[in-house]
């Protein structure tokens, strides 16, 4: 038997599950996210292993979804010393790197900013030759002063040539150990947004590395020698090596894990997923078993970025949301919350703050805490508060729908006990088993993917054959990354003809499949 551990570190809770090879939940735990995060991960892991009581050597995979990197950016803490190199002169001087991002972030990350000659036109021609001498000069100048480097070249989604060459030069001078983030690996067309994403990526490589190594050390300390993977924003897994290089691609994995977990637990491929936590409710859309991606620029820590992120609405409603009632009977719901301190601060738990959870306890909608402690509250007024809570969720659900047709709604997350069994706009409400740890399950069952993104000439083999070749290449990548060949499916496909480049087209394909069971020895 092979077992796997899934861990999801959220802002409030660290959830962990241990599954068998049929994806049955053998054990689960939910604990508070600790200040240092690692302790919480370690505790949760130890707990699920002890509970399940399976042989440690048979735990072969461990998947981690983490908010470490997001927090580092939002809090402007533990960010790396970086250099930013833009390849695009003589173009692009009219907006220098980091113009338009919040001042405090610019102070942190904008100390060493360079614009060198190079880059490409939209049709793949060079704007000018890459200034290799200048790159060598910059590399020598920053050597020993930076932890990592961000490189973005004009139209690198069309031609990655100059970024790759810059990467080589930087590695030659700075050595292998200085991480170089190349923008073509991260974002799409839109220089400033892609560059911002690359800069943020470069700024969190150490946080990512510490987290990854901490996780692996913790596993080892428990006597588990599993292959480790990180959840990424599109709902699939990435290897630890890749996660350390491109940590920005992990920062939306919390919600995607929940969405994937909800899909698995409910058996649905298309639905809305409402994930109610302690502080917020995130609503995402499940399309063909994967989270729908945002098509707009997404702000991270106040900076506009354009990399792959799940399309989400987040509202200030959760189990710990504070309800304030005034003397005249008027009330407000949130937006602030007691968060993870609900078990101490909630009225029904002996605290002094009226929360959304206390409201449902007082109205006898759930059995939790001590109902006597909230029995004195005015029931009629609480019904009004409850209506407002439900309405908030319904409005958000409606905003995420793609048509007026009712859709199935899957409720997950610990706070989902707040919501009733009937919601406007929902064709049915599904509360899957283990809903409280859907995110950890989503991490554990995530698939491994392979993708390619390159420009093909259609002249030689024709369109049909070229598309087949591209798909085959993505499938091979997925197999190489560890996917079981029979389970691989093409989950994403994009084909963009490039004008003025002859009969050329840019093809992006992503294939994903389940992780192959390790060969028994």
């Amino acid at each position, binding site marked *: 038997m092979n077992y796997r551990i899934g861990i999801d570190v959220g802002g409030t809770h660290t959830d962990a599950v241990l599954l068998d090879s049929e994806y049955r939940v053998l054990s689960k735990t939910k604990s508070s996210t600790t200040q240092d995060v690692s302790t919480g991960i370690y505790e949760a892991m130890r707990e699920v292993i002890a509970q399940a009581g399976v042989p440690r050597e048979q735990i072969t995979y461990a998947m981690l979804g983490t908010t470490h990197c997001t927090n580092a950016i939002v809090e402007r803490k533990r960010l790396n010393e970086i250099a930013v190199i833009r390849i*695009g*002169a*003589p*173009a*692009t*001087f*009219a*907006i*220098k790197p980091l*113009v*338009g991002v919040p001042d405090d972030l610019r102070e942190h990350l904008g100390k060493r900013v360079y614009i060198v000659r190079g*880059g490409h*036109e*939209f*049709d793949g*021609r060079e*704007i*000018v030759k890459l200034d290799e001498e200048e790159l060598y000069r910059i590399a020598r100048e920053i050597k020993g002063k930076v932890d990592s480097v961000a490189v973005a070249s*004009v*139209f690198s989604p069309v031609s990655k040539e100059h970024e790759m060459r810059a990467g080589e030069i930087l590695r030659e001078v700075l050595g292998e150990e200085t991480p170089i983030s190349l923008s073509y690996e991260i974002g799409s*067309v*839109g*220089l*400033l947004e892609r560059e911002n994403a690359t800069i943020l990526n470069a700024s969190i490589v150490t946080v990512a590395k510490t987290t990854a190594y901490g996780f692996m050390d913790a596993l080892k300390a428990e006597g588990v020698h599993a292959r480790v993977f990180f959840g990424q924003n599109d709902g699939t897994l990435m290897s630890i090596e890749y996660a350390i290089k491109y940590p920005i691609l992990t920062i939306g994995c919390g919600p995607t894990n929940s969405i994937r977990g909800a899909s698995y637990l409910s058996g649905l491929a298309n639905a809305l997923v409402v994930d109610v936590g302690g502080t917020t409710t995130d609503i995402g859309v499940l399309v063909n078993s994967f989270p729908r991606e945002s*098509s*707009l620029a997404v702000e991270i820590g106040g900076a506009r970025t354009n990399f792959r992120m799940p399309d989400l609405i987040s509202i200030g409603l959760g189990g710990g949301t504070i309800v304030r009632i005034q003397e005249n009977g008027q009330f407000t719901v949130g937006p602030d919350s007691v968060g993870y301190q609900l078990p101490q601060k909630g009225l029904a738990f002996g605290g002094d703050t009226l929360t959304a959870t206390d409201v449902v306890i007082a109205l006898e909608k759930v059995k939790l805490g001590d109902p006597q402690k909230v029995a004195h509250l005015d029931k009629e007024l609480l019904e009004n508060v409850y209506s407002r809570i439900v309405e908030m969720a319904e409005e958000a659900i*409606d*905003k*995420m*729908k*793609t*048509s*007026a047709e009712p859709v199935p709604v899957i409720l997950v997350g610990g706070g989902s006990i707040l919501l009733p069994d009937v919601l406007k706009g929902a064709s049915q409400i599904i509360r899957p088993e283990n809903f409280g740890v859907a995110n950890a399950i989503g991490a554990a069952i995530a698939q491994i993917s392979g993708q390619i993104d390159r420009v093909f000439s259609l002249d030689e083999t024709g369109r049909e054959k070229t598309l087949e070749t591209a798909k085959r290449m993505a499938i091979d990548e997925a197999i190489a990354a560890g996917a079981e060949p029979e389970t691989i499916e093409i989950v994403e496909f994009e084909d963009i003809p490039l004008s*003025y480049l002859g009969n050329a087209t840019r093809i992006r394909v992503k294939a994903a499949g389940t992780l192959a069971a390790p060969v028994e020895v």
Partner: protein
Amino acid sequence: MRRIGKQEIEDIAIGAAVLGTGGGGDPYIGKLMALQAVEEYGPITLLSVDEVPDEALVVASGGMGAPTVLIEKIPSGHEVAQTFQALEKYMGKKVFATYPIEAGGINSMLPLALAAQLRLPVVDVDGMGRAFPELQMTTFYLDGISATPMVLADEKGNVTIMDTIDNSWTERIARSVTVQKGGSATCAIYPMFGKNLKESGIHSILQLEEKIGRAIRLAKETNVDPVQEVLKLTDGFELFRGKVVDVDRKTEGGWARGTAKIEGLLQYKGENLELRFQNEHLLARTKDRLLCVTPDLIAVLDSETGLPITTEGLRYGARAVVIGMPCHPKWRTEKGIETVGPRYFRYDADYIPVEQLVEKGSVVK
């Protein structure tokens, strides 16, 4: 004369997006260029059109080409100085001031960046009062003013001067030059004298943009409905409120043409609005009623924030208020309708002023 700095630029950018009626490219890039220029060179001088001497040479500055290229290959910032120098040499006269050719999108912001950099004043005037996709679609053209001599420059230093027989040739030649230059170029266009600018331009447009932008920004703080504020400032009408339920978009002949369906909410429940666009929002109708049509302005605003939604930004689920604003009277002439009316954009409808349509259909003011 007044000086404008960062806050004014932020406000003008929002107002420009409203008057951009969903098109004209995202003013974001232009705004960042203007902000950087002000940071480097200090505040910009804004002149009212009456402050321009009749015989002074004024010239519009802007960008030409594909927005997709512009968001990737950002200008060097030096192109525009080159276009002005080339124009001065060709015409044998110093440029007195610059102005925006259109009030929408990115071209409303580029002259501000340029003005800061070259320490030239900007004149509070434009040639559209909104955004339109082709360069002959200006009130200057209606008065027979030529778009040329026009200068196009790229970031590499290539400068092209064009003197054409009419404005449709300007459009054709400029497009192909732009493609050769990498799909995006900076231009100096519609050079004219102060006298022409006073007669043919649309006055005080930057001031209006700034007011609109400020009203939307402050609405939240002062707890007023941003949409109502915009309507007051533009003599506009609320046409519809609802949720975007379908967007159908195609690229045809270089234009992003399409249709969006908005399902009515509140008092519009049960009705569906159909919105037609080609870069800009150009026609709004329900099954039974025509609500607003080009050259009158149609803007789609986010119903919560009042911020404008571009044609590219239209998406499922967006809560929107559709508003109609009367265009400048210059567009309501026969030649105006011929140049930018619904038939020019191949829509099967005649132009009827928005206020008449509203009256007929008892739309809520």
